[in-house]
């Protein structure tokens, strides 16, 4: 009953032990809370963290189990939530001043599901303001640091979620991915991150950035744990008309079946945009290993993928400019004082939003404005169709597409903040799948010579997350230890 919980154990085994009453959820939670108390201040992973509340949630799980309630495999598993997921009565700021102190009166769909499952929330993780960014430096509160190198960014926008799982402060985490915001920080922090197929997970209660691209996705330390969390949150929800019943839970045992006979495509044309040699080397290693396991490796082309960034940086800001219009100081959040309504609006929004958000609102407003709509927004939507077709074509031949998650390893804090375009170009490998609405998984493939994580990405057919996880699981099993533990998580470190 009182075997000491080891946070390095998987969410799967933690959940099993709690359900079997081999450990109490409170004991598990205490280990994670204590760890977060040590490392979170240095990493700045959380915007809102309340250890007492976490322990209380865990105690509630123990009570439910005590009373004989059957709980899900996630019962008692400590999970972190990105701060753009609405949590009833718990601050939800999206990393923005404009929502400072805001308390949602309802839970997001995924939050509701996880509560019912008996998950234990560790807190709300830091992110780029309204999920706009690739480094978590756009948080209005503070930047989060990469657990592998405190001078480097954890990626973004779900940087807090990725870092907290990497640093063993939480067993699992949820983030949101619009153009790579789960996958890129997963790669930078050396954990798994899945962007599900668009429509696989209800967006109800996810604060919108770009509605046609946003998806909530899990972070985990193993492929099986990704599936476990995905299974708990996927499926149709009547509160999101774009959510789909095609999304069904993944059979965990199917992940163990290897890759023999599978066709894995490499988009050589896209890779020509330039990739860090260590990442290319990692891609080659993984390719070779999978080939050795019986997969067929073939070349595919995604001829329009190189237009993805241009397409994305019209569509996402346009939708964002509209989605963020509700932050007007009338009903909630920050309001700048003024006796004049128009001044109140402009000043509230001018002061309440940070630099990147304002830049994107201006860009999106411009792209939608009279006279520019056809040249910008409409054209971008058409190119989006071309990008989708590229994936449809490629995935006729291949079961999955393998490519880097990012062109470079994690960069340094401050390195790109003054050059928005350079920051955007970092998303070249993650954005195409976002535009296509395809499922995409970033998995840890190794580390650079300077011990920074490298992540590779698998993109699949709609609602075929299972195949991506199966490939990643095969690599995970055969590669030894792709994950590792960053130095900061020294307490329970076992490298």
């Amino acid at each position, binding site marked *: 009953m009182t075997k000491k919980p080891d946070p390095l154990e998987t969410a799967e085994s933690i959940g099993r032990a709690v359900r079997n009453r081999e450990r109490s959820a409170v004991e598990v939670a205490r280990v994670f809370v204590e760890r977060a108390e040590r490392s979170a201040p240095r990493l700045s992973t959380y915007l809102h963290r309340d250890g007492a509340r976490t322990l209380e949630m865990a105690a509630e799980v123990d009570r439910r189990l005590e009373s004989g309630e059957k709980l899900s495999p996630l019962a008692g598993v400590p999970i972190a939530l990105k701060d753009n997921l609405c949590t009833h009565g718990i601050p939800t700021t999206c990393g923005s001043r404009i929502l400072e102190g*805001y*308390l949602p*009166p*309802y839970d997001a769909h995924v939050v509701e599901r996880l509560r019912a499952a008996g998950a234990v929330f560790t807190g709300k993780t830091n992110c780029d303001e309204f999920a706009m960014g690739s480094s978590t430096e756009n948080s209005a509160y503070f930047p989060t640091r990469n657990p592998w190198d405190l001078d480097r960014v954890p990626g973004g926008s779900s940087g807090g979620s990725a870092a907290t799982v990497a640093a063993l402060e939480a067993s699992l985490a949820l983030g949101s991915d619009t153009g790579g915001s789960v996958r890129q920080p997963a790669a930078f922090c050396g954990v798994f991150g899945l962007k599900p197929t*668009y*429509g696989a997970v209800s967006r109800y209660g996810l604060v919108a950035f770009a509605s*046609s691209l946003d998806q909530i996705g899990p972070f985990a330390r193993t492929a099986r744990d990704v599936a476990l969390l995905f299974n708990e949150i996927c499926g149709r929800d*009547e509160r999101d*008309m*774009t959510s789909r019943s095609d999304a069904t839970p993944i059979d965990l045992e199917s992940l163990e079946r290897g890759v023999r006979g599978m066709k894995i495509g490499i988009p050589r044309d896209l890779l020509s945009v330039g990739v860090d040699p260590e990442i290319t080397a990692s891609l080659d290693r993984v390719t070779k290993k999978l080939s050795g396991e019986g997969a067929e490796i073939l070349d595919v082309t995604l001829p*329009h993928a190189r*237009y993805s960034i241009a*397409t994305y*940086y*019209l569509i996402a800001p346009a939708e964002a*400019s509209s989605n963020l219009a509700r932050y*007007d*100081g*009338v*009903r*909630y*959040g*920050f*309001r700048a004082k003024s*006796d*004049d*309504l*128009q*001044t*109140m609006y*402009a*000043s509230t*929004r*001018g*002061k309440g*939003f940070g630099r990147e958000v*304002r*830049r994107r*609102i*201006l*860009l999106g*407003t*411009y792209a939608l*404005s009279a006279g520019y709509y056809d040249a*910008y927004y409409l*054209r*971008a*939507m*058409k*190119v*989006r*169709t*071309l990008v*989708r077709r590229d994936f449809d074509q490629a995935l006729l031949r291949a079961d999955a597409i393998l490519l880097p998650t990012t062109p470079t390893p994690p960069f340094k804090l401050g390195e790109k903040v003054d050059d*928005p*375009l350079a920051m*955007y170009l970092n998303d070249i490998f993650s954005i195409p799948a976002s*535009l*296509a*609405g395809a499922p995409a998984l970033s998995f840890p493939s190794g580390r650079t010579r300077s011990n920074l994580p490298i992540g590779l990405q698998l993109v699949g057919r709609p609602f075929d997350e299972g195949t991506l996880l199966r490939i990643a699981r095969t690599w995970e099993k055969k590669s030894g230890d792709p994950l590792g533990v960053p130095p900061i998580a020294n307490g329970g470190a076992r490298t």
Partner: protein
Amino acid sequence: MPIDAKVVQQVAVLARLQVESSEEARLVKELTSILSYVEQLQDLDVSGIEPTSQVGEGTKAPLREDEVKPSNVRDEALAQAPDRDGDYFRVPQVV
């Protein structure tokens, strides 16, 4: 049309975003660089291509039955208001 300070301010009015004159030059530079980057889309021939506004287009989403379900968020929601007058949200006068 090239982006200049005047355009930035016009768009800012449309977006109800205060842009200080000290920010104008930076914004002109940044927006110009992004917009010239996205110019590459003009190279593509998109004639006859249907736009994608939603990847789920064409899938059936069941509509909602017309049923009233009371929501109990009123008090919590009103409590968030930066300014209120009894039951109402209050704002500076609309002119």
